[in-house]
């Protein structure tokens, strides 16, 4: 059996460059520790890339070196992150993703009031609307949660999958999502096919189901909450890619035991790019204050809403 020949020149160079790699990686992470700590904690909000593109890990030893560095306590140092993002060098979507990643917690959990206020401010600024987690003294059980895919809703008595789509393209894309057997929490969107308006069509197309029944104060005053939440406009944002949709609350759900916090219509899910194999993922959902009903439903880009309308 042949044995690989020992090559001193190869071994020498390999060892030298491996040692150099260790030193360079350690030095890099130590020297710019605050920034690497931050990116490690926020990386999970990003849809693409990996930490490997920042610090290339090609050897087991180096992995532990980086891990050791990254797990040391974060320095309490004031940084001008928001100042940097305020510059014109970035596209609105990049600004949105990065701004949100600076505020969002590491895992998907209920936001604090301070976090909700900060995010409401970011979204208001980026989308040119008044956006907040609380409106008219009412708020949902949460504003950041896991969204799951819902089915189409019957818009009027007799609406079926055969009558539901306006174009063949729509049917091709969305037929497979199916239709929920019952009506939504607010009943039919219209009383008949003939009475259905574009607003009704859009409301069903861009609806979300939220856990209204878990909202603070709901059980104490069901009628008032029912009226408030019915077709209430919300901005739903995928913080990983900056995709956003103006939607209405069109149904109540999902049940708490599902592990999901809200549901999205097939059209909402596909735009947010949450329609993957598991058809679920984290989103922000905040109220839009639109008393005159001027903001159209559907996909929306940062800083472009008013230009479109």
């Amino acid at each position: 059996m042949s044995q690989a020949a020992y090559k001193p020149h190869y071994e020498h160079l390999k060892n030298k460059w491996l040692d150099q790699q260790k030193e360079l990686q350690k030095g890099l992470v130590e020297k710019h520790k605050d920034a690497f700590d931050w990116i490690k904690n926020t990386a999970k909000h990003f849809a693409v890339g990996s930490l490997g593109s920042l610090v290339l890990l090609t050897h087991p030893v180096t992995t532990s070196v980086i891990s050791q560095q990254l797990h040391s306590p974060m320095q309490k140092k004031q940084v001008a992150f928001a100042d940097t993002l305020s510059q014109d060098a970035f596209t609105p979507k990049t600004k949105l993703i990065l701004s949100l990643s600076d505020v969002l917690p590491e895992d998907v959990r209920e936001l604090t009031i301070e976090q909700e206020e900060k995010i409401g401010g970011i979204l208001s600024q980026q989308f040119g609307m008044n956006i907040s987690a609380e409106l008219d003294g009412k708020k949902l059980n949460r504003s950041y949660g896991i969204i799951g895919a819902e089915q189409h809703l019957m818009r009027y008595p007799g609406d079926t999958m055969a009558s539901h789509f306006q174009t063949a393209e729509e049917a091709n894309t969305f037929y497979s999502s199916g239709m929920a057997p019952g009506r939504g929490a607010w009943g039919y969107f219209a009383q008949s096919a003939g009475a259905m308006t574009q607003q009704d069509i859009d409301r069903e197309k861009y609806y979300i189901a939220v856990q209204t029944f878990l909202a603070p104060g709901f059980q104490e005053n069901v009628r008032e909450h029912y009226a408030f939440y019915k077709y209430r406009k919300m901005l739903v944002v995928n913080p990983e890619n900056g995709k956003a949709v103006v939607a209405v609350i069109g149904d109540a759900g999902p049940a708490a035991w599902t592990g999901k916090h809200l549901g999205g219509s097939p059209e909402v899910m596909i735009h947010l790019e949450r329609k993957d194999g598991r058809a679920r993922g984290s989103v922000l959902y905040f109220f839009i204050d639109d008393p005159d009903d001027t903001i159209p439903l559907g996909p929306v880009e940062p800083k472009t809403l008013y230009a479109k309308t």
Partner: protein
Amino acid sequence: MPKHNHFYHHIVIIDSIHIGLDSLELEPHEKEELAMLAENNLHHTIMDTVLSELEEGDKKVFLALVLHNNHNEIWKLLSFKVRDAEEKIKKTAEKFIKQLHDDIKEAHTKK
């Protein structure tokens, strides 16, 4: 060998390293391993050069953009924040690549 498409690839040419390694009479897997180490070390050196030029907030944005592999926005940031960024990166890379060639030359003496 899989190559990372780094934001500086249009200004940093590393072909000479591969040619230098060819002269060492290595097995393909040995050459691949050394080339990858050389590229990684160059990458860390360039990252340090850029990060050292940036303020703390800018560093975070830069790392996030590198994570996104968003080359356009990286260069927008660098052009805005770092004077002569391209030149600085090129100079760092040239110096480091020269050092790699010296290491290869030294390896020839170990045969």
